[in-house]
């Protein structure tokens, strides 16, 4: 009977049940932690885009985030706005996404309240080659976007090294261009249509 059909089926069903429920249990136990991790990573990215302090513990991040940032909706797109003490919106963090060289790239572009210059750029998801395209997530690349004036006609573009314009990453042309395209699409298709008080 050991190799009969019935015992085989019973065996595999029982084993699946045991391992399946064990995994479901672990997942249920870890799910809150994983969700908090994702949420904090998102908040950290938004704080960084707004050029605020994004270091510190989970609680510190959540605290700082809730102090000055709130979610709002502009033209049907959910964005985050940064307010100063008087309640004036000083900056918006707008989500963008697109395909990079290997996978989806997601992030936030923060723009000033008058939509005239970039406040900051951050990425929340990218699967580019570590050490090459993956370097879009390093300060050297992201920081150069701060305070760049936005030209809605021309969009962002890379210039010659040292010309004071944006620099692409050496050896990662595809990723660099993909990021630029994503940002320009965001400017032209989303931000250009905004009417901000």
């Amino acid at each position, binding site marked *: 009977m050991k*190799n009969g059909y019935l015992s085989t089926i019973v065996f595999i069903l029982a084993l*699946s049940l045991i391992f399946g429920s064990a995994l479901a249990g*672990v997942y249920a136990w*870890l799910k809150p*932690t994983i969700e908090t991790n994702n949420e904090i990573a998102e908040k950290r990215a938004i704080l960084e885009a707004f050029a605020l302090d994004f270091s510190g513990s989970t609680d510190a991040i959540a605290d700082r985030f809730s102090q000055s940032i709130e979610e709002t909706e502009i033209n049907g797109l959910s964005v985050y706005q940064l307010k100063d003490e008087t309640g004036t919106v000083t900056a918006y963090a707008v989500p963008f996404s697109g395909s990079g060289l290997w996978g989806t790239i997601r992030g936030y572009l923060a723009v000033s309240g008058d939509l005239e210059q970039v406040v900051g750029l951050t990425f929340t998801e990218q699967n580019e080659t570590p*050490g090459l395209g993956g370097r879009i997530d390093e300060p050297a690349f992201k920081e150069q976007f701060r305070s760049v004036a936005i030209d809605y006609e021309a969009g962002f573009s890379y210039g010659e090294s040292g010309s004071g314009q944006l620099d692409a990453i050496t050896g990662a042309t595809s990723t660099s261009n993909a990021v630029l395209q994503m940002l320009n699409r965001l400017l032209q298709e989303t931000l250009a249509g905004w009417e901000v008080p």
Partner: protein
Amino acid sequence: MAESIKQVIKRNLWYENQVVRQILGICSSLAVTNLMANSLVMGLGLTFSVALSSFTLSLLRNLIPRRIRMIVQTLVIAAYVILVDLIIKAFLPDISKALGPYVALIITNCIIMGRAEAYAQKNPPLLSMLDGLFAGVGYTAVLLLIALIRETLGFGTIFGYNINWLGMDNWTIMVMAPSAFFIIGVLIWIVSNRQEKKKGR
């Protein structure tokens, strides 16, 4: 007939090293070895999965109907790998981001199924676990060695600490997967050479 523990260790670390002698687990050896930290977590994840799945499969070895043994192996291996993936996601989110899909792909790593087929199905549980454990340690050691070369030359760092005191240019090729091909090739050559020499050929 059973091997001694010492033999199991020596065989897995040196004579039948999974990467440089059995040429298994090459995909991940190419993919995650540009940073030491990634290699270490990948190695630990695999070691944990292979040790526990070998142990479990060996426990069940007399119960598993032969004709579905591969299905059972896959089931057990997948369960442990998902467990590792969840734990890394929950407690090491930054590394989970860096490893991307590779942790989940441990399931398809030939080392685990290889150990299950070649060893766990005919040896007692504890010995199978040790066999899995040291197969994993051997894999991790090779990964770390490759990563040491690649990270030093490609980034000028070790585990993220800057060691590029001379200000040398980083080698872009070392960051990309092809460099691991060359390094593994050289390692296989060196190890085979030494072992063949020992045999007196």
